[in-house]
């Protein structure tokens, strides 16, 4: 490397190559994961007892055998299973996830329609609980052994101990049934004809309860984790050094201590993402939120294989992407590996 380019690298503080490295490593690990998921999902779904043709014709009452065979052929289910799998793979490669017979629409369309409500709900509830958890955890450390800290510790303990569905039901009872402040379920007020900001507010009102139900638990978990990590650092040597420099307590907390507490938090978030889908299924069902979770539940009940497979694959890809982001963030906070 010549002098000028090494100079340029130094000015950029060498973060780009490392971030790139992290991304490449992650994606390399992700390829076998996704391949496994493709195989396992395909065969697992076919192990679910029940016949999709039966489920489908249940709507058309009194279907005869000829009609059933016709449907079976239409669905491609009369082929040998490995042929079905081969067809499936080549179609996935072309982003063709087949036809949802239950929804009478291409699977991709069905999923994309349901994807955004879920992404909105997740980003909002997880985002808010992350920010809130960090803020509350740092505040608890700032005011350790005072009433502020004790209140935060107590509240997060209570929320942590309560099951999510119970929080959800209590919120519905209080805010929807008793106070009549918020809608019980749905995505928007049907037929209200609202647009723009009014529509966004309407969706926000509908999202408040499911987001709280999902988020409060994570808020409690994140608060407890950040608080514990920060407390461990309060009397550590390098924090004492930071104070000895005359830094303000705020700088000590946010610049010196928080990054150390964020690393375990990010690890936890990465681990949790995998199990998030199951939580989303419950919440979306309880609040009739038209997202992927409820779609998953319906598709499983209706043996809508194509939809189910696509959702599982998509959630795998989403989890992989989210983990990539988590890894990049961790690498950005812990830059010790930067210097080559």
């Amino acid at each position, binding site marked *: 490397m010549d002098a000028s380019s090494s100079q340029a690298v130094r000015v950029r*503080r060498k973060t780009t190559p490392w971030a790139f490295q992290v991304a490449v490593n992650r994606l390399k690990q992700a390829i076998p994961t996704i391949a496994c998921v493709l195989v396992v999902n395909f065969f697992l779904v076919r192990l679910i007892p029940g016949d999709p043709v039966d489920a489908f014709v249940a709507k058309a009452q009194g279907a005869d055998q000829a009609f059933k065979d016709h449907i079976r052929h239409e669905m491609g289910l009369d082929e040998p299973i490995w042929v079905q799998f081969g067809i499936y793979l080549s179609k996935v490669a072309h982003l063709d996830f087949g036809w949802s017979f239950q929804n009478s629409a291409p699977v991709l369309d069905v999923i994309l329609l349901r994807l955004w409500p879920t992404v909105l709900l997740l980003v909002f509830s997880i985002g808010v609980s992350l920010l809130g958890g960090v803020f509350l955890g740092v505040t608890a450390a700032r005011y350790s052994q005072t009433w502020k800290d004790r209140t935060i510790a107590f509240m997060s303990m209570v929320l942590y101990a309560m099951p999510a569905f119970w929080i959800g039901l209590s919120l519905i009872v209080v805010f929807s049934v008793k106070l009549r402040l918020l809608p019980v379920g749905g995505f928007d007020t049907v037929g209200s004809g609202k647009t723009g900001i009014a529509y966004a507010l309407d969706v926000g009102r509908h999202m408040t309860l499911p987001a709280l139900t999902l988020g409060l638990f994570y808020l409690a978990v994140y608060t407890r984790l950040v608080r514990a990590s920060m407390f461990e650092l309060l009397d*550590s040597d390098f924090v004492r*050094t930071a*104070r*000895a420099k*005359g830094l*303000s307590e705020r700088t000590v907390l946010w610049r*010196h201590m928080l990054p150390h507490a964020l690393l375990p938090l990010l690890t936890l978030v990465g681990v949790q993402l995998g199990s998030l889908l199951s939580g989303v299924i419950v919440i979306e069902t309880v609040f009739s939120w038209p997202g992927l979770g409820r779609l998953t539940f319906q598709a499983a009940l209706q043996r809508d294989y194509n939809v189910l497979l696509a959702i599982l694959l998509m959630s795998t890809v989403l989890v992989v992407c989210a983990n990539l982001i988590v890894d990049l963030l961790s690498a950005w*906070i812990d*830059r010790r590996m930067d210097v080559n």
Partner: protein
Amino acid sequence: MAVLKVEDLSVQFRTAQGVVRAVDRVSFEIRAGETLAVVGESGSGKSVTALAIMRLLPRHGSTRVSGRVMLGERDLVGLADAEMQRVRGNQISMVFQEPMTSLNPLMRIGEQIEEGIRRHQNVSAAVSRRRAVELLDQVRIADPHRRVDEFPHTLSGGMRQRVMIAMALACEPKLLIADEPTTALDVTVQAQILELLATLRKTMNMSMLLITHDLSIVADTAERTLVMYAGRIVEAAATGEILARPAHPYTRGLLGSLPKPRAAGRSRDRLTEIPGAVPPLHALPAGCSFAERCQRADAVCRTDRPEARTVTHDRLAVCHFAVAEAI
């Protein structure tokens, strides 16, 4: 002229065992340009004294500090937090005992030096960076231009202590408190660090409070020496006097425990030749705290707590027999 005057400083911790008097009515002053050594066994209250001056003790309700720490006209004990932050790292700096853990592992060395400079001086990023490189050079770290951008884990203990010293000196403080700065280091590195501290102290014309439990290092570095035992100062004098004619039996014990060639067959690890251990600080005896371990102790030592006596001019000892012994 005194840079810092400590008057009747006491520190108490409320613990599960009871109230611990870690520092008990300690008074001393540090004069401009001098090095004052504080020696004493582990647990004698040296670090707590230093941390009390810096106001870096745990801030819980269980810590109680009383007395005065006068920096010029100001009493640091009662100073508002924001005011105290302007003193720390600016007028008084501190170097700690544990170089391996005293730097933030997630921050570059340069950043850690610079943030102190930028906190106290209104300078641009370019200036503070140049100053950080200069400081690394001053504490004799080779290749400072490259080192500023490195993380602490790439440095050895001795190098990290140099970085700590660079950080402490960044704003040219009037007083540097060095709390056993070499205890965690190899013997050869110890000597280098002490030498570096002594040189920098002279060139920057600051005062130094050098805490150590090793009497052998005070002879070359400190003008005056305080000896602490169980939270109290038991002897204070010019270093030469203390080494030549120790007035307190405890000081004599410490001097006896200096490592020296030993008869074959004796354990090499045992440095202390004073039998026994420091009494628990939450249950100090009624008389002299050292009486249990003192060969000279008398009935009066077990019943009456000795007061400070002037042995000769500028020399104190807290012992019932100090005057008689020293002359």
